[in-house]
């Protein structure tokens, strides 16, 4: 009995060594960067973590479809280094002494990659399955590009400012054109007031037609009141 168990055990270990070794057929290398991802909270990689890994791979294979009967014992791990990196391979439980083809394992892992990452608190970069390309998440694009929104706001403000200035300029010019007509009425009033009051308000004289002598450079000079 014991001899039989010993034989079975040795067979299993040789099979293990045969299937799971670096660069074996259908084997994948996994590389973890625990300290980079978690810093001080990094957990140590021990046998329990390896057990979890095997469970996750078995889960991925079951999810994928055809390998509904994958057991944890079907996932073989080997060559664990300090890095932490190791190789794994999935044996086919239905067919004896074969490993599940590369493509299937790859597709299964890709499908449940997010779940596997989260189980270990890692992401695509810190838990690398070499030679399994990861689907990079596209950046979230809003329906309307934000820059157009800001552009629209600024554009409308500036156009509003221009229209306001132009319109107020036109109104001011109309007021200036009306004033020569008004000054004639005021002039009569002033002539009436001149007999009553002494001085005339200076602004009145500026509105009367006249020449400003360019030789006196400061054009703001007021004419001395009469």
């Amino acid at each position, binding site marked *: 009995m014991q001899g039989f168990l010993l034989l079975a055990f040795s067979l299993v270990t040789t099979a293990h060594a045969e299937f799971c070794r670096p660069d074996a057929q259908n084997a994948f290398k996994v*590389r973890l960067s625990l300290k980079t991802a978690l810093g001080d909270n990094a957990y140590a990689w021990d046998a329990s973590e390896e057990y979890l890994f095997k469970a996750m791979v078995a889960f991925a294979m079951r999810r994928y479809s055809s390998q509904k009967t994958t057991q944890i014992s079907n996932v073989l791990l080997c060559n664990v280094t300090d890095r932490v990196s190791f190789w794994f391979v999935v044996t086919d439980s239905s067919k004896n002494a074969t490993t599940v083809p590369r493509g299937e394992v790859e597709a299964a892992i890709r499908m449940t990659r997010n779940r596997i990452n989260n189980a270990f608190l890692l992401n695509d970069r810190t838990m690398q399955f070499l030679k399994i*390309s990861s689907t990079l998440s596209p950046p979230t694009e809003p329906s309307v590009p934000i*820059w157009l929104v800001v552009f629209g706001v600024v554009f409308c403000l500036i156009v509003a400012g221009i229209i306001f*200035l*132009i319109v107020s300029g036109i109104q001011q010019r109309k007021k200036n054109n009306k004033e020569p007509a008004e000054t004639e009425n005021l002039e009569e009033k002033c002539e009436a007031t001149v007999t009553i009051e002494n001085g005339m308000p200076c602004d009145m004289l500026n509105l009367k037609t006249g020449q400003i002598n360019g030789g006196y450079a400061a054009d703001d000079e007021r004419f001395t009141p009469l």
Partner: protein
Amino acid sequence: MEKSRPLWDNPLQFVFACISYAVGLGNVWRFPYLCQMYGGGGFLIPYLIMLIVEGMPLLFLELAVGQHMRQGSIGAWKTISPYLSGVGVASVVVSFFLSMYYNVINAWAFWYLFHSFQNPLPWAACPLNSNHTAYIEECEKASSTQYFWYRKTLNISPSIEENGSIQWEQAVCLILAWLTVYLCILRGTESTGKVVYLTASLPYLVLLIYLIKALTLHGAVNGLVYMFTPKLEQLANPKAWINAATQIFFSLGLGFGSLIAFASYNEPNNNCERHAIIVSLINSTTSVFASIVTFSIYGFKATFNYENCLNKVILLLTNAFDLEEGFLTADNLNHMKEQLMANYPNEYVKLLPQIKNCSLEAELDTAVQGTGLAFIVYSEAIKNMEVSQLYSVLYFFMLLMLGIGSMLGNTAAILTPLTDSKFLSTHLPKEVISGIVCFINCIVGLTFTMKAGNYWFDIFNDYAATLSLLLIVLVETIAVCYVYGLRRFEKDLHLMIGHKPSWYWKIMWAFASPLLIISLFIFYITDYILTGTLQYQAWDATQGQLVTKDYPSYALAVIGLLVASSIMCIPLAALAIFIKRRLKREHRSIIA
């Protein structure tokens, strides 16, 4: 009744307008480059000497001419001597060329400003390719910030011959930039006077915030030490002195007619001597201030890249030899590399091509100027800061303020002579004249939004103003000193500011500055002749870097046309006046 000339509300508006015009993008992106190339802290020596010999006297000269003649550049030079009205026309032509291409920079600033409101910043990471398996190749070969600039912003073509179509995003930003400029100049000094309070002061606020932030960045000290260690042997290099002179010259914006235009709106007794000194000192101080900020940012970026490079090498070795994480550090890297080479020679040799030699000096040595500095290097540094959106918005807003401030001066140089001319101002109100000028500039500026637009931009940037301005300012100085007469000018100044100019000003105007400009002119001409064919940098998308190409013949023709069209105005106008006078004299002699 003659319309009174509009005036600045107070002398402060005039000073702010001059500062806003003079302090422009060149202070931020050209001076730090020159500082780095020509001896760090030692470059300040030729810079200050040139400021005293060339900058202040010529600035004072232009302001005094404008304030005395009270007209734009064409009218002012016509008053000095009718044969010299060509100088004014040349100034207007050069200003016209400048405003055509300068506003494109504001369009780019708007583009980046609008894109800063996203999280994460669009230039922070490379976009994915179509099947989402990797990043876009061009972006991987270059960097994400270069990709955003060359592909997303410019969508640049591989060479100047391939024109491509107009990029609607850039075109729309350009239209917005021109509308903004129009809004500011619409009412003449009334509106410009208020706007310059903002455009002159806000950049300083942002620079101050950036200074405080930049000095606290990790690695900023490396950049500052690198910049300020004077390499005094560079003082023996004539290029250092020539570049110092050129930088002062162009930084103050002499010869465009903008300073004359601004000064013409002054009260006649404004003390332009004091203002000239203030403006030139502030301009130079701002350059030094901006270069402190720039070098802190350089230091940060270089340190960041250096540490990234080291980390990549560490990761590579850790993965290749399955070493424990954290075993290799920056300190023991060299020692461990030797050990690994000794223990595993075969594998190490296989890795050798991928192991880069990381050097902090090499990162700091990458001197960049111009749009490359402003839009690539700075945005790369910004994306690595925390709260990068805020800093990005502040930075591009500052670029916008600097650019618009300079544009106000440029457009004033064009519009003041136009509104001074009786023919135009009686038929059209000044809003319409401004509108037409902005519209024409905008339409021509759309050529810079095409795929090859950046190459044409570089042509205009390098050749439209450089040679012509030297000649214009030379003729101006000679005209004032020798044609108008230095004594007459002295008396005019005495009338304006109350005292005669001291011997320092007179010596500089009469001898030092003209000699300096002549030597600069000779240097430029010989440089052009010696270099033979002119070349430009084209972006190669397949390699992800710039390559040097020769200009095609039609581009060379455009360059020649640009330079000739402004320079030729001076002799042609003199000839035209001469012919007109001869005809008048003959006409009179026929009648008599």
